């Protein structure tokens, strides 16, 4: 059905974006950790 595939694409799209953003945030935490530990 066209509607379900559209919904599925929306969901996958959202998940991709949120996952990427989560990755960025994780990377940020890593950097702060490196700075703190490396002082």
């Amino acid at each position: 059905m066209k509607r379900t595939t559209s919904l599925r694409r929306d969901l996958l799209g959202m998940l991709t974006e949120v996952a990427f953003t989560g990755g960025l945030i994780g990377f940020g935490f890593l950097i702060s950790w490196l700075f703190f530990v490396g002082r």
Partner: protein
Amino acid sequence: MVRRVWREDFRIIGHYTGLVTIGVGLLMLVPMVTSLVFREWASALDFAISAALTLLVGYVLAFVSRTKSTPGLTHAMVIAAGSWLVAVMLSGVPYMLSGHMKSFLDACFDTLSGYTTTGMFLLQDLDHISQGLNMWRHLLTYVGGQGIVVLALTFLIGSTGGAFKIMVGEGKEEKLEPNVRHIAVLIWRISLIYLGVGTVVLGLIAMANGIKPYLAFFQGAYVFMSAWSTGGFAPYSQNMLYYHSSAMEIASMVFFILGSFNFALHYAIWSGNRKEILRNVEIVSFTITMLTTFSLVCLALMQRGVYPNVVALFRRGFFQLVSGHTTTGQSNIYARTFVREWGPLGMVATTIAMAIGASAASTGGGFKGLRMGIIVKGIATDIRKLLSPERAVVTGHYHHLHDNVLSDAVVKSAAVIVVLYVLIYVVGAVVGMAYGYPMADAFFDSVSAGSNTGLSCGVTQAGMPTLLKIVYMLEMWMGRLEFLSVFTLFGFIATSVRSMRLSKATA
């Protein structure tokens, strides 16, 4: 311009501005209903009055300038710039009626700040306003983020040709689909879905943190709208500190990072092209500049021993920096804390992040990641050209939705806009310094205004000099419209004045 055509120009502009104004009036019904729900009768009445007034002005404009013509590009630019002015002033009426503003100029400052998704405010006693007024403030940023114009397009205009030109005037120049109605619907669809998801997620977090359920979802909606639009307003004066919740901050951060992405990118990803998120020049640029400026911030904070542990360093440092870089403006530290504890390096790194800003065709401001990417690659290509044998053909490329050639024209237009941004940042800073503010503070708030960020280090407050208020307002406006629309408006006014004088002379 020939005299007959010139009168018709005014009609077109007046008519479409009228339609946009009607849209704004209808929007005021949302806070009115909010106030009714919370039994804030006086506030509901204020919104009813404001809505009636705005609708009246809108209908009068649309009626008096009735026309069947569709706008050309120039008209579109003037409508885009002009309707902002009308919307800003009328949107200030509920603020004035609430009694929380010291002047009408302050009210216009706040509404302009809302529509441009900046987030600085001169409102007095924020902790004691009605739910209706809070709804209005946050709604302004959400709608402003989508573009007042797109709002009008979706509900009020049938034709497609003229509407596309209006949106180009808005500064969102991505060519997503040939049909502009489709674009508007798509932008709204993505934003509304996230609005639903975001309100629920943030509302649940608020509830888990001890806020009563019916309030939690309103708070969730406010915070979401502020984040997604990269506006930066918050329902209370403590901004995100009010909630004392890292979950709330992280969720909000996810939404404001997403809100800072190009809508064309959202469209690409939601249409199945998921790899785009790793290849897109703006994402690459943002990741690099964000992590670099954040490293500088960490350096500064560690050097000054500001935070006692890693989690504190990350939670405060990262949130503030990313809020600045995405030009959001939410904060989980006090403004004066930022100035006094972070120190010059911390402030400068954040200022640079704000100046660079978010992605093009997003709700964010600043130079835009696309231009940073283009300029850096342009420089790299020039260096390659210098190093290559004379007869070799060297072309640069950048990936934005698809592979693009890095022509001289592209690099030049990116550079021109960056220079214009730097110009307004500097002018705002110089005016601030002329009034005696320290250099770092003057630059910070000026860049914050020009990049539509909204973080403040204390310069922006009701007592600030009037001229500085006006300068920041011009910065917010020009920054959001990326200059072209504003220049066209002024150009149009100048031309009209000249033709009026000419026709008077020849009459």
